[in-house]
C-alpha cells in the first residue's frame, strides 16, 4: 500500500508538468501542420539535433548547467512569493566579478578559482539582496526592482567592456581579455565543451534538496504562504525576504561563474542572453522542486540545443522552439486552474474508487 501510495503521489506531482509539456508539443505540432510542415519530421530533427552525436549530447548538459543553477535560485525567491525576474542581472554581476578576480587579482590558480566563485556568489547575492532589502525596507515591488537591476547590470557590463575592462590587445572590440588557461574548468569530453562545472551543478542540486529540508528552507516557504501566517508563526518576514533574495541571486551569480570558467572565458556584452526568463519558466515547470527543476532544465536545454541544430541543418525555423516555450509558459500560468480542478479531482476520484 505505501508503495502504490508513493507512486500515486509522485505521479500526481509530475503529472501536471508532463501534461503541460505534452500539450505544448501537441499544440506545436498543430502549428507546424498549419505552417505546412511535417511535425513528426520536425520533432525527429529536434531530437536528432540534441542526441545524434556525443558533441550534441554534451551540449545539452552545457546548456542545462547555468539554466538549472539560475532556476534553483529563482525557486528560492518564488517559494517566498518574491517574484525575482532579474536572475539575468544577478548572473551578469557573477560573470563580471569572476573575470575581475581572474584578470586583476594575480593569485595562484586554485585560490583564484575559489575566490572567483565566492565573489560571483556574493555579487549575485548582493544584486538580488538589494531588491530584497528595497522590498523589506520600502515595500518596493520586486518585479520592478529586479527588472531595473537587470538593466543596470547589463549596462554596467557594457560600460566595462567598452571601457575600463576592454582587452588592451583586442583592437577595440567590446570584450575583456580572456582568463588564463589554467583558470578554466577542465573539459570532460574530447572535442566537446562539457566541463567540470557539471559537478558544481550536481553539488548545488544536492544542496538544494537538503536546503528545502532545512529550517531556513521551511521559514522561506512558510513566509511564502502569506505575511499574516508567517508573522503569526513568529517569523521575521522582512529578514526572510532579504535572505531569500540573497540566496536566490547568489545561485545566479554561481551560474555566471560557471559560464565564465567553463564557456566564455571573458566578458562580452549580453552574456546572460535570455537565460533569466527561460530559467523562470524552468523553475515553474519544475514546480519549484529541486529535482523537478533539474529535469525541466535538462528538458529545456534539449529543446534549445535540438532546436538550434534543427534550424541549422534542416531549415525548420527555431521559432518552433520559441512557440513550444511560449505554450509551456501559457500552460504554466493556467496550471493553478488545472491543478485545482481537473487533475486533483481526477486523482481523488481514483482514490475513493480504490478505497471503496
Amino acid at each position, binding site marked *: 500500500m505505501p508503495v502504490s501510495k508513493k507512486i500515486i503521489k509522485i505521479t500526481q506531482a509530475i503529472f501536471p508538468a508532463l501534461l503541460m509539456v505534452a500539450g505544448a508539443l501537441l499544440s506545436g505540432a498543430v502549428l507546424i501542420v498549419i505552417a505546412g510542415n511535417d511535425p513528426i519530421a520536425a520533432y525527429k530533427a529536434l531530437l536528432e539535433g540534441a542526441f545524434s552525436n556525443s558533441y550534441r549530447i554534451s551540449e545539452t548538459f552545457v546548456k542545462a548547467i547555468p539554466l538549472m543553477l539560475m532556476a534553483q535560485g529563482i525557486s528560492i525567491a518564488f517559494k517566498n512569493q518574491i517574484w525575482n525576474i532579474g536572475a539575468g542581472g544577478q548572473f551578469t554581476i557573477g560573470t563580471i566579478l569572476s573575470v575581475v578576480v581572474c584578470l586583476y587579482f594575480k593569485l595562484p590558480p586554485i585560490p583564484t578559482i575559489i575566490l572567483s566563485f565566492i565573489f560571483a556568489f556574493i555579487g549575485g547575492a548582493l544584486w538580488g539582496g538589494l531588491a530584497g532589502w528595497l522590498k523589506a525596507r520600502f515595500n518596493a515591488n520586486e518585479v520592478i526592482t529586479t527588472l531595473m537591476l537587470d538593466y543596470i547590470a547589463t549596462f554596467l557590463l557594457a560600460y566595462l567592456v567598452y571601457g575600463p575592462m576592454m582587452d588592451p590587445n583586442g583592437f577595440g572590440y567590446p570584450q575583456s581579455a580572456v582568463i588564463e588557461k589554467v583558470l578554466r574548468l577542465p573539459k570532460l569530453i574530447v572535442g566537446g565543451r562539457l566541463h567540470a562545472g557539471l559537478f558544481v551543478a550536481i553539488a548545488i542540486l544536492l544542496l538544494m534538496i537538503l536546503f528545502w529540508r532545512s*529550517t531556513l528552507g521551511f521559514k522561506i516557504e*512558510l513566509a511564502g*504562504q*502569506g505575511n499574516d*501566517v508567517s*508573522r*503569526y508563526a*513568529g517569523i521575521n518576514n522582512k529578514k526572510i525576504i532579504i535572505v531569500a533574495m540573497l540566496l536566490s541571486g547568489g545561485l545566479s551569480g554561481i551560474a555566471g561563474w560557471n559560464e565564465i570558467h567553463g564557456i566564455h572565458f571573458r566578458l562580452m556584452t549580453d552574456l546572460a542572453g535570455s537565460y533569466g526568463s527561460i530559467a523562470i519558466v524552468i523553475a515553474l515547470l519544475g514546480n519549484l522542486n529541486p529535482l523537478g527543476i533539474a529535469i525541466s532544465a535538462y528538458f529545456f536545454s534539449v529543446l534549445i540545443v535540438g532546436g538550434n541544430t534543427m534550424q541549422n541543418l534542416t531549415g525548420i525555423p527555431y521559432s518552433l522552439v520559441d512557440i513550444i516555450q511560449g505554450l509551456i509558459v501559457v500552460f504554466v500560468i493556467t496550471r493553478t486552474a488545472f491543478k485545482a480542478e481537473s487533475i486533483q*479531482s481526477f486523482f481523488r476520484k481514483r482514490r475513493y474508487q480504490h478505497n471503496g
Partner: protein
Amino acid sequence: MRNITKIFGHLKANDAVDFKLREKSIHGLLGENGAGKTTLMNVLYGLYRQEEGEIYIHGQKTDISSPLKAISSGIGMVHQHFMLARPLTVVENIMLGRKSSRGIFLDTKKVAAEIRELSDKYHLMVDPYARIWQLSVGEQQRVEILTTIYQGANILILDEPTAVLTPQEAETLFSILRQMRDDGKSMILITHKLEEILSVVDDVTILRDGKMINSLKVTPATTKEELSRLMVGRDVLFDFYPVAVKPGKERISMKNLSVRNDKDFSAVRNFSLSVAEGEIVGLAGVDGNGQKELAEALTGLRPAEGGLIFINGKEAVNKPPVFYINEGVAHIPEDRQSMGLAMGFCVSKNLVIKRFYQQPYAKNGLLNYKNIKDHAKKMIQDFQIKTNSTEDITRDLSGGNQQKVILARELADDPSVLIANQPTRGLDVGATEYVRSRLLEARSKGSAVLLISADIEEIIQLSDRIAVIYNGELMGVLPKGSQPEAIGLLMMGKRQGDNASVKENY
C-alpha cells in the same frame, strides 16, 4: 422543489431533495455546514443549475436558468456577504443595474420615494440617501432586504442572516420578517442556529449530507434536542456548564492598552483586563469593535500605541511575536485561513509552524520529517482531525477540521495563555461542541483563556467572567450567569441605566 440533485465533481451536494414552501410562511432550512443548504438555495436562485429535479412556483413548473430569471419569478436572495457598493447611497445601490424610467437620466427621486414608502411599510427604517459605509451591519442587511422587495420579490431567501447581528438586531430582523409574512410574503431562512428555528420559523426542513431528512411544522412542543438530533444524526450535548475552578495567579494582563487598526484609526482604547490561570474570560462584542486588534496586540502581531501588557508577570508590550510564542501564548486567530494556517502546507507541517526549529522536529538546522509526521499522527488522533493522511494539503480540509488543526497546534503544549478569537465561527454544531470542550479542557489544565466571541450564548456557556467590548472600550465585566440581555445592551454600547444612546460606531 422536487427531487433536486446537484453534483459538484464527485460530491452530491444535493441528493434528490424535496422542498416545499407554503405561502405566507417563514421556512427554516436547517443543517450543518456542508449539508447542502446554500447549494439548494443557489439552485432556486438560478446561480446553480440542478442535474435533476424540477422547481414549481405557485404550482407552475419554472425553469430558473439565471438570477435574472429568479428575480422575474419573484425570488429574491439576501446573501451572507452583502453585495453593496460602499461609497454609494442606498438608493443608488438599489438602482444599480436597473433601467431608469427616465431613459438616460437617473430617476433617483422617484426611486427614493418608492423606497421610503416600502421602508415605512415594513418598518425597515432605511434612509434612501444614506451612504452604505455609514450604515451598521444590521442596516446594511435591511438595505439588501429592501432591494429584493423593491425588485418585486415574493419569496425571500436569507442566508444565515443573524450571523453578523447582535441579539437586539436579530430580534428587530425577526419582527420585520414576521410583518412581511403577515403581508403575504414567504421567506426561507438558512441557518444552523436552533434558537432561531424555535423562535421565528413556521416550518423547518432539515438537510444532512445533501439529503432531506425531515420537514416539519414548528410547534411549541418542538425541542432543540429533537432538531439537533435530526441535523447531526446523533445526540448533542448542550449546556455543559463549566465546573468552577478557583482561578490561580494572573497570567496575562493589560493596562490602559491602546491599539490602532490598519487604517490608523484608534481601535482599542485604554483597555484594562486580566486573565488568571484556570480561568476563561469571555470578551463579548459585535464584530469590528476592536477585538481583532486587541487579540493581535496581545500576541505581538500589532504594535500597541500605549499602555502595558504583562505575560506571566513579564513586561511584554511591543515585543515581537516570537516572544509571546516562547512565553506560551497560544492564539486561535479570527482569520484562520490567512493567519492561522498556511493553507498550501500539508497538515503535518501546519502542526509545527511555530515549533519546527526546535527539537525533536529539527536538529542542526535540518528538519526531522519522521518526528514531524509522528507528531501529526498523534495530533490527528487526539484532536479527531478528519484527513486522509498527515500529508494532505490543509486547504482541502473542511472548515471544522482546519480549526481542529489550529487547536491541535495551539493546545498541544498546554499553553500558559490562550487567546481564542471567534473560535467557533462558521463551524457546524459538532465541531463547535468539540472546540468548546477543548477550551474547557485547556482551562482545567491551567491555561488562562481569553475567549473573544460575538456569540453571546457561547460566552455565557463557557466564561467565568464576561467582559464586553464596544468601540474599542471595555464596557464592563459581568459575573458568570449574567443574562444575555444585559450583555447585549453593553454590546450595543449602552451601559446599565444609561438611557441616552451611545454614539454609533462608524
